[in-house]
């Protein structure tokens, strides 16, 4: 075939871009199989916004030339974005859940299981059930896990079941909703926010709004207290404070610089670094976090031992070859939030790069990603923040594009419609 020789010449001439080929050409290394007998294999771990998107797009864009397996323990995806609406009561957990079944039509194989580690030399991923999966490229989208010893009082599962984080959507979201429903009118809901960086910067403030909106309707004597370890509101400050001083006046109180030493789950109490202990009827603590366990246990968290550094052209780890990392686990580039929308965009840049690497094409040297975070103030009014980022070759990182992006002028119902539309489209973009 004519194009084969053209391609081989091209691969040689662009060798500086470290291309990998899979054509039956010999001398091309890095793939488990050559010669068109077996396809190159990509294994994706984690079916969240990053991983599910990467799995679908690698399968779709390679037009079946790459064998894609998604390792994900659950049968359905539950969205973190919009999960605060379950706390507010305007949505149920089913409204924000989507089954993984839709990925099959792209050729993605869903393996239900827990990945425990990988062997970078043999290029195999180990699963908790003792089996292993071979890969040419491994994609980890492990999300976040809480730093184990940061809050000793939350070391036990019992304690964590009482003072909930609900920072991964699912059973804890429902459990926290149940605590709010069970709380007496006149009670206090307190949310503790860790120092940035953490997953979903505006999320805690949106949560405060959603709980206040719920209280306003059925428990108007109750209060929401935001205890923020940060010096100030970390996202959409003007828009949130306007709601707190407007429709939620007297219902929401914001306190900054609220460092904590520990949590006493038996008494629903925070041990403050400065000042008196703080007790709440429903206490919601978002512990300090880092890249998800599989990244941390395999030494991929090479930034402060918390987050993972990657090459922004391919999302390949700077610590281990042939392993790509997406989403909240990353050491972020300047002004790049840890959001689901962003993880979806990481997934696509990574997918394009992996398809190029495994089929002998060039890796795009000018990737861009766009972010939007919609936050619900109540059940209908929404605010957004948006930004667009491009790769800067000199700095080897992603930089925000000057003059683009921005915030809503004020909360509005049209963006409530668009935020719901966003959810349906991004879930479909990942999963169906």
């Amino acid at each position, binding site marked *: 075939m004519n*194009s084969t020789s*053209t*391609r081989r*010449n*091209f691969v040689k*001439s*662009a*060798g*500086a*871009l470290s291309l990998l080929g899979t054509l039956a050409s010999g001398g091309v290394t890095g793939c488990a199989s050559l010669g068109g007998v077996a396809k190159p294999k990509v294994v994706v771990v984690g079916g969240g916004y990053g991983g599910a998107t990467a799995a679908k*797009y690698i399968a*779709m*864009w390679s037009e079946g030339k790459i064998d894609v397996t998604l390792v994900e323990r659950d049968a359905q995806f539950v969205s973190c974005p919009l999960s605060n609406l379950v706390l507010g009561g305007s949505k149920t957990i089913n409204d924000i859940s989507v089954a993984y079944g839709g990925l099959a039509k792209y050729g993605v194989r869903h393996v239900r299981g827990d990945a425990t580690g990988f062997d970078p030399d043999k290029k195999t991923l180990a699963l908790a059930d003792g089996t292993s999966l071979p890969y040419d490229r491994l994609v980890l989208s492990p999300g976040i896990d809480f730093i184990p010893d940061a809050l000793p009082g939350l070391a036990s599962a019992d304690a964590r079941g009482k003072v909930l984080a609900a920072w991964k959507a699912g059973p804890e979201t429902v459990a926290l909703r149940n605590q709010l429903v069970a709380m007496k009118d006149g009670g206090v809901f307190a949310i503790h926010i860790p120092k940035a960086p953490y997953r979903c910067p505006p999320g805690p403030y949106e949560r405060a709004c959603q709980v206040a909106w719920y209280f306003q309707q059925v428990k108007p004597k109750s209060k929401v207290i935001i205890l923020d370890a940060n010096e100030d509101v970390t996202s959409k400050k003007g828009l949130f404070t306007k709601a707190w001083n407007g429709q939620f006046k007297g219902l929401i109180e914001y306190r900054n610089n609220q460092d904590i030493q520990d949590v006493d789950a038996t008494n629903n109490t925070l041990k403050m670094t400065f000042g008196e202990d703080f007790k709440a009827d429903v206490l919601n603590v978002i512990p300090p976090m880092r890249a998800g366990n599989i990244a941390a246990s395999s030494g991929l968290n090479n930034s402060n031992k918390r987050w993972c550094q990657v090459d922004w052209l391919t999302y390949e780890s700077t610590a281990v070859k042939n392993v790509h990392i997406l989403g909240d686990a990353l050491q972020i580039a300047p002004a790049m939030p840890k959001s689901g*929308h962003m993880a*979806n*965009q990481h997934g*696509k*840049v990574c997918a*394009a790069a992996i398809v*190029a690497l495994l089929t002998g*094409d*060039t890796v*795009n*040297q*000018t*990737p*861009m*990603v*766009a972010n*939007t975070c919609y936050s619900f103030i109540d059940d209908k009014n929404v605010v*957004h923040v*948006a930004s*667009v980022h*491009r*790769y*800067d*070759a*000199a700095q080897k990182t992603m930089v925000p*594009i000057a*003059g*683009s*992006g*921005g915030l*809503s002028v004020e909360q*509005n119902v*049209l*963006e409530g*419609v*668009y935020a*719901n*539309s*966003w959810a*349906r*489209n*991004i879930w*479909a*973009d990942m999963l169906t």
Partner: protein
Amino acid sequence: MNRFSYQVMTGALVTALTGMYVGAAFAQTSVSPTLGRNLAAQCANCHGTNGKSVADVPSLAGQSAAMIVQKMQDYRDGKLPASIMHQLAKAYSDDQVALMADYFSKQAK
């Protein structure tokens, strides 16, 4: 476009194009057929995979390229009211918009 037409690019040209935006040079050279696809993938979160929306935000799939280009310019220049597109449109060059518009116009409705 021939799927592999970009393969004739030399390593030097690839390097020359690295780190710069899709510029006039790109318009005359054969552009990687995946560039428009990759750029357009940024829009899919809100407009659906390949521009096929399943919700309230309009589909871009199968719309005329000229219409998409015109609207993106109008959003950028503040001539068309928008909740968010005016902020996003400012991030893209005319060449990038043209590539995305071409890609969406060729997708099934």
